[in-house]
């Protein structure tokens, strides 16, 4: 079951634009290694779940994975073969809007080589460019 909010104020959203860089959620906070987005984009709940499963399958029962983003925003789709108009389409899924610099996933309790390999598998599932980052030890 992909991620989605339990309660929302409005079912449908305007698309909007994602401007600027992340000024929060841009550091490795819970684990030792992270996967950081290098460009802005929308990550669907299914893509997030695919990334989680890719790590779980690679690491099996090793380590701890933390997902730092959540798909708060719905997107809609008009059915195929439908004439234009007749209002906004029905909700087709949920996305997490991320800015450049956002840390998407974190890993703890695994050696660095394993974390790099695991996140490399995740990066292939995501629609944004990413890179592997470390936690800062002191400053």
């Amino acid at each position, binding site marked *: *079951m992909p991620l*989605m*909010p*339990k*309660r*929302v*104020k*409005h*079912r449908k959203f305007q698309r909007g634009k994602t401007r600027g*860089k*992340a*000024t929060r959620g*841009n*550091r490795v906070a819970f684990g030792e290694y992270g996967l*950081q987005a*290098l460009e802005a984009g929308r990550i669907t709940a299914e893509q997030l779940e695919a990334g989680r*499963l890719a790590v*779980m*399958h690679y690491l*099996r*029962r*090793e*380590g*701890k*994975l933390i997902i730092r983003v959540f798909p708060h925003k719905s997107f809609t789709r008009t059915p195929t073969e439908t004439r234009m108009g007749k209002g906004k389409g029905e*909700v087709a899924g949920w996305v997490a809007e991320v800015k*450049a*610099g956002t840390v998407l996933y974190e890993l*703890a*309790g695994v050696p660095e080589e394993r974390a790099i390999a695991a996140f490399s598998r995740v990066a292939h599932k995501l629609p944004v460019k990413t890179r592997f*980052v470390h*936690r*800062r*030890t*002191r*400053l």
Partner: protein
Amino acid sequence: MEITEIKARPRDERGSRACSRLRNQNLIPAVLYGRGAPNVLLTLRRADVRRLVEENAVLVQVIWDGQADNAQIKEIQYDALGDVIQHVDLARISLTETVTVNVPVETHGEAAGEAAGGVLELVMRSIEVECLPTAIPDQIDVEVEALEIGDNLTVGELSFPEGVTPVTDAGTVVVTVVPPLELTEEEEEPEELVLEPELIGREVEEPEVPPEEGEAPPREPQQG
């Protein structure tokens, strides 16, 4: 802990545009403050600051304008992607008065719970301690070999070097061994598949009740 020397130059310009110009020249704006003396705006060489970061330096001796001040690096600001150093905060200290610093935690050995399939989780990666600047430990060693799954170590159970007092609450958990994560792919789907979230503030729709005999049906609003 060693005190690293760093050369600085005082600066007159302030503000984001002036600081941006400095950064383009491989200089980093910094500020030196504290202990009742006036604040001093400084510039540092980027290469010097990178060296401080690589050495994990905490204490520095700032040499500027023929003066030398001992200082603690309070903060290093980075850009949004975390690559480029933007600014350094330096707080004056006295070598004879205690300071409060964060010291990283280093675990040693393999926990017994790890061998049983558990995952060692570092809940706190650094502990706030109070000590003399010359007695700041490089790290706080934590022996985890005896920890089984579900066990944890608190700040109060750790041993600190002489003269080092933890500021963090003694009951705070530092290290724990958690059970391994299970693959949830094979989990059974819940009976009622929730496709849409609940709407906040939407009134619950009441089911329509057919009108009883002899009662007039509700009138349609008249169209004008």
